[in-house]
């Protein structure tokens, strides 16, 4: 939805400081963002209108129950103390306190559910990038011919498809009718990967409109630049031009685009888990929401956000390292 992938201006990398100063500044900036993320997560519970405890225990909770909940959530302390407790929890246990429902640490809870979600994210990312690159290459190499028109209509149509609805249709078609894939739940080992095929297609599908639209523009940009004409003039076989030059030049923006869109991909994954009944972080989120288990919700929010920041930082560093243009005149 808020994929501003197309916002990524394809005007090449901004002139980055050639020295390692840039590297240090970018890392410091990401660190500050992580700190802000922690503060945002801390205040998450405060946006609840009224008393969170009453909201958790319901209207008819006895004053004593409310009192003990306040204590459990630490709401009876002053804001400063609460923040200190939040930070100490974070740095000692590395999580946002214990679950109200089960009492064990959020880190453990999330760690249990993480593998299947991470696998789903990995599979859908690979799928999304491969398909998007394929479609973008097809569209840009036959500009204004039928593949291009078809691929240009594709984002317009699929942009309005809610990810859960796509999931439902895929379940209906492949799961129920054709029985190719198991419906719901995630098996073990290879079984797990197999059962994640349909969900990862769904998540990848939700990323398509932005990725295809931006990559097609990116590839056209490269294909129409002068150095491609120089290579064609030197009669380099077009296959070589495409793979050795065009795709390489399109690879960097693709990497950046993936970094920018990562948070939408994770969001999509959480929803798809709910549709396909996969016991990952997504379903943990929904169950914590239904039992109003605030610390776990905060934990999920924190880990997702920190993961996004770290991966985006890595993506930016890799693309800076790969791109000679940022090395400046030496």
């Amino acid at each position: 939805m808020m994929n501003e992938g197309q916002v990524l201006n394809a005007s090449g990398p901004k002139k980055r400081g050639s020295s390692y100063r840039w590297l240090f500044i970018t890392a410091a900036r990401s660190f500050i963002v992580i700190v802000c993320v922690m503060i945002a997560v801390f205040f998450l519970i405060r946006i609840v209108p009224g008393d969170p405890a009453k909201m958790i225990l319901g209207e008819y909770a006895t004053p004593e129950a409310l009192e003990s909940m306040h204590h459990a959530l630490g709401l009876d302390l002053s804001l400063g103390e609460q923040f200190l407790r939040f930070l100490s929890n974070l740095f000692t246990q590395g999580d946002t306190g214990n679950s109200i429902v089960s009492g064990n640490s959020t880190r453990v809870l999330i760690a249990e559910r993480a593998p299947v979600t991470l696998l789903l994210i990995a599979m859908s990312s690979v799928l999304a990038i491969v398909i998007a690159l394929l479609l973008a290459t097809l569209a840009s190499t036959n500009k204004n011919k039928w593949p291009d028109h078809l691929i240009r209509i594709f984002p317009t149509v699929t942009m309005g498809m809610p990810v859960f609805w796509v999931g439902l249709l895929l379940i209906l078609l492949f799961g129920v009718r054709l029985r190719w894939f198991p419906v719901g739940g995630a098996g073990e080992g290879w079984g797990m990967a197999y059962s994640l095929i349909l969900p990862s297609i769904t998540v990848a599908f939700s990323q398509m409109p932005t990725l295809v639209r931006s990559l097609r523009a990116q590839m056209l940009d490269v294909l129409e630049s002068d150095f491609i004409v120089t290579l064609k003039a030197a009669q380099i076989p077009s296959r070589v031009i495409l793979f050795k030059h065009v795709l390489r030049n399109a690879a960097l923006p693709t990497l950046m685009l993936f970094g920018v869109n990562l948070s939408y991909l994770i969001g999509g994954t959480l929803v798809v888990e709910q549709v396909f009944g996969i016991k990952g972080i997504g379903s943990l989120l929904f169950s914590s929401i239904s039992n109003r288990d605030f610390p776990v919700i905060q934990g999920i929010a924190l880990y997702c956000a920190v993961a996004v920041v770290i991966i985006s930082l890595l993506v930016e560093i890799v693309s800076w390292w790969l791109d000679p243009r940022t090395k400046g005149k030496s």
Partner: protein
Amino acid sequence: MKTISAHNLTGPSRKSQGTLRRILKNPTLLGGIIMLAILVLLAILIPVISPYDPSAQDLRAFLQPPSAEHWLGTDQLGRDLFTRLIYAARTDLTIMVLAEIIPFCTGVFLGMLAGYYGKWIDNIISLVTDTFVAFPFYLIVIIVAFASGAGQRGIFITFMLVGWIVFARVTRGVTVSLRQQEWVASAQTLGLSGIRIMFRHILPNVLPQAVVVLMTDMVGLLVAIVTLGYLGIGIAPPTPDWGTMISDGQSFITTAWWLSAMPGLAVVYTGIALSLVGDGLADLWRRR
């Protein structure tokens, strides 16, 4: 020295007359506008068009396939699906439009501010955007919707918090490139103040791209509203909403697949219409 007249000084170019002609000549934009018009007209005229009350249950006629009386069949409580679908359009589309207004304005303003002044203003605004963008959008939407109580309020609050970011980023990018343009430099040498340059010179050049992004962003918001409805933390029944209709129809997916399919198609239809308008506007302004 004879005066050299502008090379096509034939008829004077009225701004409005020219734009109308150009819209008609732009099929994508025209297509999008027509599709939207049909939807809005249907939403307004539905009480006249359909004899059925969206929430009137008729247990004798439940789960009927699409037929002459019920164009899209009926749901598990015998309510006419087509009527509910269009009433749901009223709710979803109004929220979609209302929830975009404030984020659009704040986003464009902050983006211009960050792009034009740069330095510390830019850093602060970019820091805030990076923090919010780090949270997966659906994660925030779900948590805030839950925290602020289901229903429209949750959607509005979420979108006030997060909705302005994409506009801020787009506007900032455009403003930064506009600042290098020489007509901005000549406005500066004239001594115009920053605020005046931003609003009189930069804003008219930033709005077109911001509006194009608004179209695609609205599609995203609509999908978010519908997703929340599906997850049961969005618009609370009995107000009709595409999302809840899809989740209601889910249990009958094998027998009455159209119950879940139709609301989804309605979202897709609106999505197509809005992105056609967005693409059309982008072509229109790119040629200017």
